[in-house]
């Protein structure tokens, strides 16, 4: 960037353009990528670990690893899936080291609406969110990660496969099992 004007409209750049600029020595491009993804990564890690301090630490670790690895990164996948892959690996390593299985009691069962009922019966109360959060902490970590990537991050099966290193067929069956497990926990059957 020695013979080029610094870019002012970082928001207009695509992720891969920021990566290329960073690889050329423009650290502000990496700062922009951090700003774009820090909250998404933080939320993912927070729901995996259920600990704000740990989530902050892991988010920072993820960004640091990205900073060091990005110089040699080649765009085989999108930057987002690569970053989530880094975050997921760091988080799963932490969970494995801790070997802590949290038991979060679910006070009340989630009341799934009758299929014939209207949209007014959908779960919208804060209590239901708490139930879902608690159920997420009780479901297996492999299921939790794949559900978060699908339902919160809205990744496609191919993108989830890139993040987790799984084939699309495996992603498909695991998501189906994860949803079933979560519903059963919410209903108090597990």
């Amino acid at each position, binding site marked *: 960037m020695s013979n080029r004007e610094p870019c002012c409209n970082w928001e207009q750049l695509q992720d891969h353009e920021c990566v290329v600029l960073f690889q050329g*020595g423009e*650290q502000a491009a*990496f*700062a*922009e990528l*951090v*700003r774009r993804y*820090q*909250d998404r990564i*933080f*939320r993912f890690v*927070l729901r995996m670990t259920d600990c*704000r301090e740990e989530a*902050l630490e892991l*988010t*920072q670790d993820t*960004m*640091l690893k990205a*900073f*060091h690895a990005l110089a040699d990164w080649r765009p085989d996948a999108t930057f987002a899936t690569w970053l989530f892959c880094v975050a997921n690996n760091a988080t799963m390593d932490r969970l494995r080291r801790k070997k802590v299985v949290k038991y979060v009691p679910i006070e009340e069962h989630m009341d*799934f*609406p009758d*299929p014939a009922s209207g949209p007014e019966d*959908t*779960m*919208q109360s804060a209590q*239901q*969110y708490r139930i*879902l*959060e608690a159920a997420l902490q009780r479901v297996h970590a492999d299921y939790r990660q794949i*559900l978060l990537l*699908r*339902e*919160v991050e809205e990744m*496609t*099966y191919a993108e989830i496969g890139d993040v987790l290193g799984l084939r699309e067929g495996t992603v*498909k*069956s695991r*998501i*189906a099992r994860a*949803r*079933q497990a*979560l*519903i059963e926990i*919410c209903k108090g059957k597990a």
Partner: protein
Amino acid sequence: MKKHCKWSEELSSYLDGELGASSRLKFEAHLGSCFNCTEMLAQLRNLRHCFQSLPQQEVGFDLAPVILANPAHRARPAWRPSFSWWQMLPVSFAAAATVSLGVFMGASLSSKPDIGLVVPTLAVFEPMPPFDVCVAVMSGCYPKDNI
């Protein structure tokens, strides 16, 4: 999904829009006649709605300056020194000479004949007292009262 019919495993993929066009059409035709699938699909949609309405926690501050100011970055120099081969020649010669001198000195020391040093061994724990002491006692150098 619980296997209540052959389509039950496809519910999740249908919800995610990951079914192929022909499979999707067949599944939609099936939905009209299967109460279990319809009920399960409604539950999955409800679950999705709940996920998407979860509170959006945030870090609360800009992490970028923290990352870029991390000491680990400064420890990793962006500029790496590069040496040409001719710049390394004097150092290489000096190293080779040092090694050669060491080898030569070692070889010359080991080629000398043995001096024949005899190291006396001490029998500290023998049951009998040392010979000189016995002679001294017997010869009366020491008064018997002191022994």
